[in-house]
């Protein structure tokens, strides 16, 4: 049965067949985010929360909603952290959007760049190292976000990951036989008692990318489309396309994938509970091995630069 929420013109249809107007969709979306926060215990009574802000629609949506929450609860403080990887023609645009949003909403924004922190922007690193862009980009981003969150004394770091992102990660890890990486997925990452590691939370965990975009559009958070020039190389993009084809043919595919994953996640966490409890011998940050991935790649960068010179 197809139902309309009220007499207002519907703007979006849900996989269930229900059709919602602008204001009922906004309520539906925000309620879903708050429900996710409660269900997975993402935010406590008192927090100094960070929001990892890329300037894209997902992270802006998280910041927009958590900023409202913070206004209602003075014990929940909000800061934004942005990473400037150094991707010409892409990150400069999304960062401008991030700066603009934080200025208008009076949110403290901390920006850290690969160039300042590691000596080179990503674009330059990729000329030197023969690696997949997203591999080192991700390793360095997670490294910086964790380190800076700790230095800023943040209690948790919220990210813009949505249902589609999670679904893609689950399938990618399956296809690559990398199930240990799946143990580090879920709405709340890093439960391990480790003072080197700042917990990451995903308030958009149960929101489909299409819903996030519609919410961002309705609330004026959607900017002109920009895409990282490196994204075409990614395995993720191919998995994403397959999942979207499946979702079109069988609505609810993404929910089902993530929901069934949630049921096995406790078992995965149990099986791999040893991960990330070491401390990197070089930089003293949390690591799964004696030397962390960031230091491994930084070392390779240094060696290649010496060779070139």
């Amino acid at each position, binding site marked *: 049965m197809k139902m309309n929420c009220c007499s207002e013109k519907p703007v979006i249809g849900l996989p269930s067949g229900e059709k919602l107007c602008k204001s009922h969709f906004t309520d539906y979306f925000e309620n879903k985010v708050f429900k996710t926060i409660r269900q997975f215990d993402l935010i406590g009574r008192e927090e100094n929360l960070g929001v990892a802000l890329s300037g894209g629609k997902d992270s802006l949506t998280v910041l927009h909603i958590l900023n409202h929450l913070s206004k209602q609860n003075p014990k929940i403080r909000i800061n934004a952290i942005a990473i400037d990887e150094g991707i010409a023609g892409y990150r400069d645009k999304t960062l401008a959007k991030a700066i603009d949003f934080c200025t208008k909403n009076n949110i403290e924004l901390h920006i850290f760049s690969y160039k300042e922190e590691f000596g080179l922007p990503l674009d330059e690193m990729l000329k030197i190292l023969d690696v997949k862009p997203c591999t080192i980009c991700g390793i360095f981003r997670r490294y910086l976000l964790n380190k800076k969150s700790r230095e800023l004394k943040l209690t948790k770091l919220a990210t813009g990951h949505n249902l589609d992102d999670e679904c893609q990660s689950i399938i990618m890890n399956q296809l690559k036989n990398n199930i240990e990486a799946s143990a580090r997925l879920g709405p709340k990452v890093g439960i391990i008692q480790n003072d080197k590691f700042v917990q990451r939370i995903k308030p958009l965990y149960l929101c489909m990318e299409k819903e996030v975009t519609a919410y961002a559009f309705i609330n004026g958070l*959607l900017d002109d489309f920009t895409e990282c020039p490196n994204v075409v190389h990614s395995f993720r993009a191919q998995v994403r396309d397959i999942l979207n084809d499946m979702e079109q043919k069988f609505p609810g595919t993404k929910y089902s994938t993530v929901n069934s994953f949630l049921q096995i996640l406790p078992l995965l966490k149990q099986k791999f509970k040893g991960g990330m409890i070491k401390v990197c011998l070089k930089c003293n940050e949390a690591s799964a091995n004696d030397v962390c991935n960031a230091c491994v790649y930084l070392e390779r960068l240094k060696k290649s630069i010496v060779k070139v010179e």
Partner: protein
Amino acid sequence: MSKISIHVFIDRQNKNTNIELYKNSTVADLLKKLDINPVTVIVSRNNELILEEEKLGNNDGIKILSVISGG
């Protein structure tokens, strides 16, 4: 059957184009003609989101906005 003409902007391709459709065609028909999966976009007319079953009119200006995260 008579035809209508739609002005379409596709943000992911940064492309403006005119598409001819049969009268009474819907957003879903437009997406099908453009070979775009409806799961991957939202569609707006006059800055308002519209549903896939919405009928299109002659000379409508339609924006097709990608929901895909840019990285």
